């Protein structure tokens, strides 16, 4: 059975979601993984998109967070002020599922600008969107992002969304109500925060991925768990479901 690193990442991210959870979904990789989870082991996963669609059940992957299929299949569609104020802010949502352009060893996320300074950046990224408050207020956060030495950095160029700030105690000091990022799921494996230092540590690797490759593709001095879990390869059922979804999206574009 052959599969790509991206497919392994998406499957691994989907497995992190449990049936019956409520999940605030970012677009891109997180949306693919959340929809895969709903199509496989978590049929009662509640998908919430910032467009105000609560309990969306799309039959194919949406391109945007506001595709018609999300509104048409949702349990409820609410306004944008309401989704943030009534649903996200009070801590009703179990897990925030986010992407990142740049992430640091304390799980802080940059989606604003890279290089240069803010007024004159080398690369201007889209910006915050819903992520700062998702990162602050969901009970916990999972980040899905490809691992690379330029995207996994010691300290992000701009803190768009706060992970653990500069270490233990920062979330409490800042009054952030959620527990923060519990996992970073990449195309190499899974990172989790060290219980003492909160620095992200490689605790799981996909079949065939070595610790040295993980270190090379990380911009900080990455700690690797003494015995990292070898994460199971995608099952045929997982791959079939993922490819069915992606094929359906390709067809919906024609």
């Amino acid at each position, binding site marked *: 059975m052959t599969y790509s690193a991206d497919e392994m990442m998406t499957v691994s991210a989907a497995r992190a979601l449990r049936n019956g959870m409520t999940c605030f979904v970012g677009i891109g990789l997180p949306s693919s993984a959340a929809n895969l989870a709903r199509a496989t082991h978590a049929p009662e996963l509640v998908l919430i998109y910032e467009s105000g669609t609560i309990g969306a059940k799309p039959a194919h992957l949406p391109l*945007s967070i*506001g595709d018609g299929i999300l*509104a048409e299949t949702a349990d409820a569609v609410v306004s*944008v002020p309401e989704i943030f104020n009534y649903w996200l*802010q009070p801590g009703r949502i179990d897990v925030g599922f986010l992407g990142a352009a740049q992430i640091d060893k304390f799980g802080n996320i940059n989606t604003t600008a890279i290089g240069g300074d803010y007024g004159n950046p080398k*690369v*201007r990224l*889209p910006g915050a969107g*819903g992520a700062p*408050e998702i990162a602050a207020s969901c009970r916990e956060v999972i980040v899905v992002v490809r691992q690379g030495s330029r995207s996994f950095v010691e300290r992000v160029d701009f803190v768009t969304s706060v992970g653990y700030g500069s270490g233990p105690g920062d979330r409490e000091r800042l009054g952030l109500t959620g527990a923060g990022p519990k996992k970073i799921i990449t195309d190499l494996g899974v990172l989790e925060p060290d219980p003492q230092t909160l620095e992200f540590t490689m605790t799981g690797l996909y079949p065939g991925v070595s610790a040295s490759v993980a270190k090379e593709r990380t911009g900080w001095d990455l700690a690797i768990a003494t015995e990292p879990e070898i994460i199971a390869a995608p099952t045929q059922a997982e791959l079939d479901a993922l490819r069915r979804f992606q094929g359906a999206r390709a067809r919906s574009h024609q």
Partner: protein
Amino acid sequence: MAEIVSLAEAVERAIHDGDAIAMEGFTHLIPFAAGHEVIRQRRRDLTLIRMTPDLIYDQLIGAGCVRKLIFSWGGNPGVGSLHRFRDAVENSWPAALELEEHSHAGMANRYVAGASGLPFAVLRGYNGTGLETLDAGPGSVPTIKPITCPFTGETLTAVSAIRPDVAVIHAQRADRSGNVQLWGITGVQKEALLASQRSVVTVEEIVDTLDPRPGAVVLPSWTVSYVAHVANGAHPSYALGYSARDNDYYAAWDAIARDRVAFSRWLDEVLR
């Protein structure tokens, strides 16, 4: 009472050089036709306000209509960058672009404050982010500040109200008196319109009576300045019940916007 006029007339009467304009629509019901009319009428020096600038503001920025952008997420959803926006920020092409940058929750609450006639709104947000630091930095007019709850003593975040000169939205329907009805993902349009001094609403159709729809927002005629009939006026965004989001157009825009020459050709077509 809303006046029912042509789109050209609505834009001519409502939107002036230097205005602060909110063209809202969260992925759904984005008022593209109205945006193109603003380009055609060559408005300049605009402050554009919008949570998700999307292709519509990429086009207005590239066309040189914009001085300042107030926003929270400037990407091409599911595709990548807004290249005209990036070219303006990274290379000042065709002109420098001033930014006032927020999170979605902050922007949504700023509109709520504007619609409520309050100077600010309160939320839990921004703590520890670079957005908060930027806002307090030199040269910026502050829009984010800590505030103490008078009941509990807890520190929360205040964001200043947004009060645009003009709101521009697209809706499914209006009746002949200019009452407007929209449904599906209704985003922040109601708040944006009620926060604004004037408004332009384009609609898919004008009908004799608005039959009730589940989850619909109705904006009474007396809250709206101008209604214009523009079928498919949200394309390549969509109007639930009338059209589907043209995801291929969003994907194809990437190559057009990436290249100044290709963009200029696109612009010539719009202006023709």
